[in-house]
Every structure is written in C-alpha cells, then in structure tokens.
C-alpha cells in the first residue's frame, strides 16, 4: 500500500512543485482564461533586483527572528517554571496550551478586537497606564510589535509543551546527586538540565521555524502588510503580487525562493532526527 499512496502524494506535491517552476519561467495572465507566455529568466532577474521584494525578505527575517526568538525564550522559561510546580502541573499546562489550538485567523481578529482604539481591552489598558495612546495597528512603530506579540501569544505554548517533555526525561538521580553535592539550581540547570534537553530544544526550534514561514494569516487579517509596508513580510508580498496584481509568474519565482528556505529547514530537521536515532 506504500506505493499507491506515495504516487498520490507525488501528484499532490511534485506536480505543483514542477508547475510552480514552470510558472516562474512564464508571464502568467488570468485575463480571458489562463495564458502562459514564456519569459525565460526575466521573473528571476527581476526578483534579484526588486527592492520591494528584498525589503519584504528583510522584514520576514526580522519577524522570524523576533517571533521564534521570543517564543523560544518564553517557552523554555515557562516550561522550567511548570516543571518546578508541586501541584496543579497538569491543569496549568492544559490552560497554557489553549492558544495553540486556535485558528491563527481568529487570533489575528481577536488581536484586532483587543487593540481596537475605541473598544479594545488592551488598547484601553495601555491608554490608562499612559504607555501607548495611538492606534496600535495603525501606527508604524507599534503595528509590527503587535503582530509579533500575537504570534508569540499563540505559539509559545508549543515550545512549553515540547521542552516540558524534554525536562521530564532528565535523569532525576543525577539531579538528586548534584543537590547532595551542593549544586544550586542555576548550576544544575547549566551542567545537567541544559545538556540533556538541548536536542529537544533544537527540535522545538525547527518545528516552530517551519510553521513560522508557513503561516501568514495573522498579518493578513490585522494589518495586511501595512501601515506603510511595515508588516509586509515575504508571503504577504507574494500573495498580493499573485492575487492583487495578478502577476502570477513573478509570484511563482518569489514562492520558489520561500520553498528553498523551507527545504533547508526540512533538511536540518531530518538531520537532527538521524542524530537522535529516530530515522530508521
């Protein structure tokens, strides 16, 4: 049964993959049906000199580092906290996990609701505390921070979940022995816990990385790249190139650039599986 299913997967994955390569070599028009006009490498040469696409990549890199970075730091910290609790561990974890089951589009819409300058709870709190008084999603300086924090809110729980599984497998006898020998919490963390959960933390980083480049729902429904392009990361630029300017061939070239990135992450993931002895 392996072969027929793999053939179906090939139809679902390889066919679109070769098709997007073909698209990137054409000028694709949707007027009066679909027409392909062979353009050679023009889409490609254009992409490498396109300042807007370059800026969108740079913004995507910033967005990526900020979201995944904050999620890793907070996720590891919260996991360490939950691991130390004596009661209510299970309940605390269940409650903390809730955001990650939410549709990202609802997270974005809820974020809009909370930051709405007239009716938003968080906008109200920030205003009353005198921290921020302008329209959060409508102001360049705060819009990017706001969409980053929405992503962090939704996906930090995933890191907590994975790192906690790593912490649960740390050898308790070694910890107890270190305690007897007088090692304090930070010393134990550094010399025993950190080395034993390093592999799990890298898995968490890679799993999160691949999804961070997959989804763009939150930005689409909050700022859609604005104000003034400040949140226009590469998938948003691709989407508007394809479905607003109907420049599908050019969008395909941008899409292939994104695919290369995800293939690099997938490659790193398979390597870590091998090093953990999980790829048989």
């Amino acid at each position, binding site marked *: 049964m392996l072969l027929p299913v793999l053939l179906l997967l090939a139809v679902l994955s390889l066919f679109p993959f070769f098709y997007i390569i073909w698209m990137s070599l054409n000028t694709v028009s949707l007027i009066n049906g679909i027409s392909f006009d062979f353009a050679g490498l023009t889409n490609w040469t254009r992409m490498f000199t396109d300042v807007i696409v370059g800026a969108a990549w740079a913004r995507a890199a910033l967005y990526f580092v900020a979201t995944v970075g904050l999620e890793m730091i907070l996720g590891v910290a919260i996991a360490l906290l939950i691991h130390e609790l004596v009661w209510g561990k299970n309940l605390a974890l269940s*409650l903390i996990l809730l955001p990650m089951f939410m549709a990202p589009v609802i997270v974005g819409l809820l974020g809009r609701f909370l930051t709405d300058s007239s009716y938003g709870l968080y906008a109200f709190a920030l205003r009353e505390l005198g921290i921020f008084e302008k329209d959060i999603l409508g102001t360049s300086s705060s819009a990017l921070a706001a969409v980053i924090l929405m992503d962090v809110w939704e996906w930090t729980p995933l890191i907590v979940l994975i790192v906690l599984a790593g912490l649960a497998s740390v050898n308790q006898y070694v910890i107890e022995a270190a305690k007897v020998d007088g090692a304090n919490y930070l010393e134990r963390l550094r010399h025993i816990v950190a080395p034993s959960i390093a592999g799990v933390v890298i898995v968490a980083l890679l*799993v999160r990385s691949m999804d961070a480049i997959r989804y763009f729902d939150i930005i689409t429904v909050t700022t859609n790249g604005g104000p003034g392009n400040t949140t226009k990361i590469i998938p948003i630029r691709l989407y508007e190139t394809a479905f607003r300017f109907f420049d*599908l061939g050019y969008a395909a070239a941008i899409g292939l650039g994104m*695919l290369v990135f995800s293939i690099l992450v997938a490659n790193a993931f398979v390597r870590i599986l091998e090093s953990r002895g999980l790829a048989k």
Partner: protein
Amino acid sequence: MTASSSNRGMGKQVILYAILFLVLLWTLVPILWMVLSSFKPGVAQLSPTPVFFFRPTLQHYTALFTGGNLGAYFINSVLAAGISTIIAVSLGTLAGYGLARSHFRGKQHVAFWIISTRMAPIAAIVLPLFILFRYVNLLDSIPGLIVAYLTFNLPFAIWIMNAFFQDLPPSLEEAAMVDGASRFQAFYRVALPLVTPGIVTTAILCLVFSWNDYAFAATFAGPNSQTLPIAAAQLNTQTGLSWGQLTAIGTIVVLPMMIVGLAVRRYLVKGLTLGAVTGE
C-alpha cells in the same frame, strides 16, 4: 534546619505560583474576553471603558445563524476538514506502516521528500494549485478544499503514523505470521490496534490543521464553499464593527479544537514534533 529549608521551599513555591498566575493571565485573558464579549449585549459592547458585568445574551449567536448563514459555513468547514482528515489518516496509516516496515535504497530521500512537502510554505503551494484548480474546475468547491488540505495532511499523517509504527517491535507481527496470519492480518489484527492512540492523535491534529486553515480557503473558496475562518474574516470587513458577532464566531471556531486537542494531550508532543520527541 529542616524547618528553615522547608520554609525556603514554601517561599520558592509562592514565588513560582505568583509567576504562574501572571503567565495564565497573559494566556487566558484574550480567550476569556472573547467568550465574555460574545455574550455581551450590543450596548455594553460599544462602551469606551471595558464592561465586566452585564445581562448575558445569545443575540450575536442567533444573528450569525439567522442572518449570517453560519449553518452553511459550519457544514462546509466540517465537510472539508472532516473528509480530508479521514482520507489522510486512512492512507497515512497504510503508507506509514509500509514505510516503517520496509527497507529499500533511498528510503531517507523518500522520508525527506515527505517531510518537505509537509513544511512547504502555504503561499507557495497556493499558486500552482490555483491555476491547476481552474483547469479542473475545483475552485469554489468542497472537493477542491479537501484536495488542498490533503497537500499538508497526507504527508503529515504518513510521517506520524510511520513514527508510531516504528515504536512497535516487529516481533509481534512476525509471531502472528509464524502462526499463519497473512501480512495484512498481522497489520490489521496485531499492529493496528496497538497504534490506536497514534491514529486518534493524527486524526485530531489533521482536523485541527484543516479546520483552522485560512490561506487555502481564502484563495480557493467562494460562495459555495466558504468555511468558518473565512466567514469570520469577512464579517469584520463587510459590516464594519460587529465585534459581538466576531467574538461569537471566534468562540464557535476555537472551542471544539481546544476540547479535542486537550483530549490527546499525552500524545501531542509526538504528533507536533513529527515524532522527534516522545512525551510522558
């Protein structure tokens, strides 16, 4: 000595629970505020200061179903996510078993291909599928959405089921085959019952991924195939400020996924790390 160290332990726990309280506040306030607002009458909704006490109403929910056609969107969501999940899990179980029990040259390349299909950025997959769907008339149809969801659910299901089957020692099936069972009987009567938790986890995660999808449905769905996340996003732009209905639809979208997601919490780590980390 014991008293002072247990006092210190107590003090530590108090601090830990204080931090946990802040973390829970951060996680839960948006969700609770959404659910609370969905039962809030329109007047309280439009107050410039947050209203915490009000007479709860179902007006937003009834408005969604009577005027908003939400019943149809709900059915579309259930059909698209449900059928794609059933296909992905059935085929994924068969192929995952095949992959776990077979050894052939280039197996790691097949594995790498499966995982990179799962990780491919949605914005890049949407492009070729959009053109292909136009050719075969799958735009604005439930079958189209099912195919689109299979592009990520099928590789995911194959991969995870492979990981669950790898945890089973092949000796059980070998013993059954020595006793006269066929290969298929060994799979069906011995291996399959033992991976029931894996099948349930895979099914729930496939369901969550496709139920929560926005990007595919936003591109492919139309009046005949609109799903709940699309309805939620359009609600906001078409009718301007209708936060009551928006929070109601948000609640309808997220609650079922939170419930089924937590139901398989024990196995979530394995599922979400694509088999790289085993929990509890």
